[in-house]
């Protein structure tokens, strides 16, 4: 809980727009918010733990459904990105001839982006999609977004296998830093889950959240260093790109897969902090509205 407590003040000052006149009151208020965020995280972890059986069952169900009736089965989750990589590589490796092994360069960032955008958009409709269940069984509703984050994670692991194969095939050495993946995946997971929960709430109340998100994701894709790397851009542009909360998670994951370097610690901690704040705000919003979902089908 400690690292959470240290970053949460930002969340509280964001979620309480009206400035309080006295600083003493302000501090009290901030303290209350931190306390509440801590409580939310506790409930969150407790609920996830007590529904772990259901999460596992749902994830296996999702995967089974996805691949059951296709003849190539699990191979699809590797073929899909491979095909995309091939096309993009053919074009961009000519545009950006300075990049060595462009396929690996691209792939190592594309997996992060695909995890993010796929999970966020699926989470968005997960509450409405499970309304039948929500109306019958009292349960914490964020279990549905969590399930999606988990299924997509399994898919991501399958794609990782493809990435490693591609790396070897193009003749690039495999670095030990690949093993750091679970650590450098954390900020991406936190931000993805937080945003997914926020959008899930928003989608219940405003159906056009879907359309807006699609638009925003499209722009966001180009603002995230996936097709290109920050080193290819002048510093005054990169400075602005760093404001993108996905900038560090995506580039750092690329560093461990493509460059074989251990990413810098400070940006890492920063993005974990941002992730915790995003998730804290999301949980706050989610818990506050959870009981109303049932009236909005």
């Amino acid at each position: 809980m400690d690292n959470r407590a240290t970053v949460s003040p930002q969340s509280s000052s964001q979620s309480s727009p009206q400035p309080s006149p006295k600083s003493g009151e302000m501090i009290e208020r901030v303290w209350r918010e931190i306390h509440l965020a801590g409580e939310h995280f506790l409930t969150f972890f407790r609920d996830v733990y007590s529904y772990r059986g259901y999460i596992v069952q749902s994830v296996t169900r999702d995967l089974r459904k996805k691949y059951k009736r296709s003849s190539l089965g699990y191979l699809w989750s590797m073929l899909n990105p491979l095909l995309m990589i091939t096309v993009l590589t053919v074009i961009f490796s000519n545009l950006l001839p300075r990049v060595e092994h462009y396929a690996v360069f691209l792939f190592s960032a594309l997996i992060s982006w695909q995890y993010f955008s796929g999970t966020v958009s699926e989470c968005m409709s997960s509450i409405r999609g499970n309304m039948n269940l929500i109306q019958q069984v009292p349960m914490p509703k964020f279990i549905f977004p969590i399930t999606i984050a988990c299924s997509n994670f399994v898919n991501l692991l399958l794609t990782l296998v493809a990435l490693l194969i591609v790396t070897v095939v193009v003749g690039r050495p495999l670095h030990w830093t690949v093993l750091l993946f679970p650590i450098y995946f954390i900020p991406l997971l936190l931000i993805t889950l937080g945003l997914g929960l926020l959008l899930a709430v928003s989608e219940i109340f405003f159906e056009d959240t879907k359309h807006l998100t699609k638009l925003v994701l499209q722009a966001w894709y180009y603002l995230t260093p996936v097709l290109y790397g920050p080193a290819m851009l002048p510093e005054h542009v990169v400075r602005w790109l760093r404001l993108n909360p996905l900038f560090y998670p995506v580039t750092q994951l690329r560093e461990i897969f493509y460059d074989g370097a251990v990413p810098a610690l400070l940006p890492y901690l920063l993005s974990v902090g941002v992730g915790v704040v995003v998730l804290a705000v999301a949980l706050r919003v989610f818990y506050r509205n959870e009981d109303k979902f049932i009236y909005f089908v």
Partner: protein
Amino acid sequence: MEQEVVVGESNGCAPHPGEQATSRPPALEVKNVTVQYRAYKERPGTFKEHFLQFARTGRWPKYYSRFEALQNLSFTVEAGTSLGIIGSNGAGKSTLLKTLSGVIRPTKGEVLARGKVDSLISLGAGFDKELNAVENIYLYGSLHRIPKGEIEARVPRILEFAELEEFQEMPVRYFSSGMFARLGFSCALDMDPDILLVDEVLSVGDARFRQKSQEAMQNLLKSGRTIVVVSHGLRAMADLVDRIILLSKGRIVFDGAPDEAIKIYLSEDYEVALDGKRFVESTPSSGA
């Protein structure tokens, strides 16, 4: 669903089957429960409409009026007894059942449920039509937080009760509605609920299965469990329940013996009676 909807003195009072019903606190306590719905005239729908309204009036728009689906209900259900809920459409029966199950949180008042609550509100919620019967049992069981090993032991029993052993490999999608209902009913029954909430499913399956499920519910009652039923099938209900609550417009009109409740319900002048406040004071009854 191990739930203490409101933490009271009820902690640690989990009922044990076979205990004397009289020595235990009631299985369900409903205290002054009011459920307020939002009745939407027009759903806000889009951001644009929402913000335009805000820009025009300076206030966030309210598209709904509140109405009370349940008004200040209070009653208790003793463990080992069964309660029926009847009333015309829109009287608040399903809302009451959902409130008891914890799906809807009461706007005012509290519901105290002692023990594991399971509800059969719409059959097959928690099932996935693409999966086969066995997979669905696992899914359903895990939703009720039953460990995997324990579910494994239950699977044959559930299949047997549902009479679906031959079809266990078939995706539920291809099931007839009767088969589907049987599977749902058997699962819910096998979760060992302390309190079983049933909505309109007394008519599940054919006559034989109906007979069987009635017996199963009787057995639940005998072992000290509690059942709350909502139904329009008055005769089937009267056979099962010890006591009936008659609802009208979200209020209790009558609470007592099944025969009498049905008589009042069929006489159809109870709604008038409600306005004249004749039956509003419910007869306190603790069931059989």
